[in-house]
């Protein structure tokens, strides 16, 4: 019936599938459905953003000038590059290059960590100025209602995104360990592929957050 897991590297076909290919196809479709629902998680906040930016256009404009454009922009390039290293990690696995896969995964993790570190520096800078969300807002230079809404949405959107980056980093670390152990073969590396899809979605969300929050002119 089903072959026992003779070695860690042997992918196991679950009982409900007639082949490993079919099992992977199902996993891939499930991942796309998950990514679709993730997009809709951000959609709620983006809809709020659209409404408040429409109603408080001048305040969003003024508040956005206080966003840290340098850190926001560096983080954009970091995430774009991490998407490249992730794609190259999977490419290396397809060619059967285990060492290269691990190196590209480690590079992706380093870039993601860099993003989180810069985000923390950015948050600390804003909080020390009093640019805090909701009722904690205490920045004296800008006191309009719409500004507080921008700042609160800034924390909600970037905070939710940063949580996704951090979650993605945990997945990447687990994938790096498995890749080093030799779990992934050119024909069977579905976990690596799905982890990669998740990481690209994190990049995708930031592609929109960057102009919406940092580049209002």
């Amino acid at each position, binding site marked *: 019936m089903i072959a026992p897991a003779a070695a860690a590297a042997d992918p196991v076909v679950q009982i409900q599938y007639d082949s490993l*290919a*079919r099992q*992977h*196809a199902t996993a*891939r*479709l499930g991942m*796309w*459905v998950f*990514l*679709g*629902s993730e*997009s*809709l998680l*951000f*959609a*709620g906040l*983006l*809809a*709020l953003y*659209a*409404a408040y930016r*429409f*109603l408080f256009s001048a305040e969003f404009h003024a508040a956005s000038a206080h966003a840290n454009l340098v850190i926001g*922009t560096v983080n*954009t*390039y970091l995430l*774009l*590059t991490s*998407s*490249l290293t*992730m*794609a*190259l990690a999977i*490419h290396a696995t*397809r060619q059967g290059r285990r060492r290269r896969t691990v190196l590209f995964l480690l590079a992706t993790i380093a870039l993601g960590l860099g993003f989180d570190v810069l985000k923390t520096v950015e948050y600390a800078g804003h909080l020390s100025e009093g640019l805090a969300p909701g009722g904690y807002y205490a920045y004296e230079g800008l006191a309009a209602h719409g500004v507080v809404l921008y700042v609160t949405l800034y924390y909600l959107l970037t905070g939710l995104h940063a949580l996704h980056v951090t979650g993605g980093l945990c997945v990447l670390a687990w994938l790096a360990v498995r890749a080093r152990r030799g779990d992934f073969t050119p024909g069977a590396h579905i976990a690596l592929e799905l982890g*990669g*899809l998740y990481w*690209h*979605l994190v*990049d*995708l969300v930031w*592609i*929109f957050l*960057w*102009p*919406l929050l940092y*580049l*209002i*002119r």
Partner: protein
Amino acid sequence: MMMPDEPSESHAPSALGYLMVWAALVVLATVTLFASRAVTGDWGLVVALTIAAAKAALVVACFMHLAGGRPIHRLVFAVAVGFLVLLVLGILADVGTRSFASSYVDDLGRAL
């Protein structure tokens, strides 16, 4: 029933292909940065979102292999993006028409 399971090797970009996509993304990000200075106001938002959509299309099509993958993946993703756009447009239609819709609602109230 036959179905193409894996985006086959021929569909997946080569390492050079990935590098070129990344270069295009970096160029587009830099264009966004300069465009935000050159084009301001409502058109600035339109330009920024158009470039962001182009970058997103590159990531989804090439890095996420949606271009060479199964059609059902494209359908699932398109439905999610479609609902996102519907939600945002619906909310904008609400806040964008309040100025004259509210007076209509007030008139209704007076008539009753």
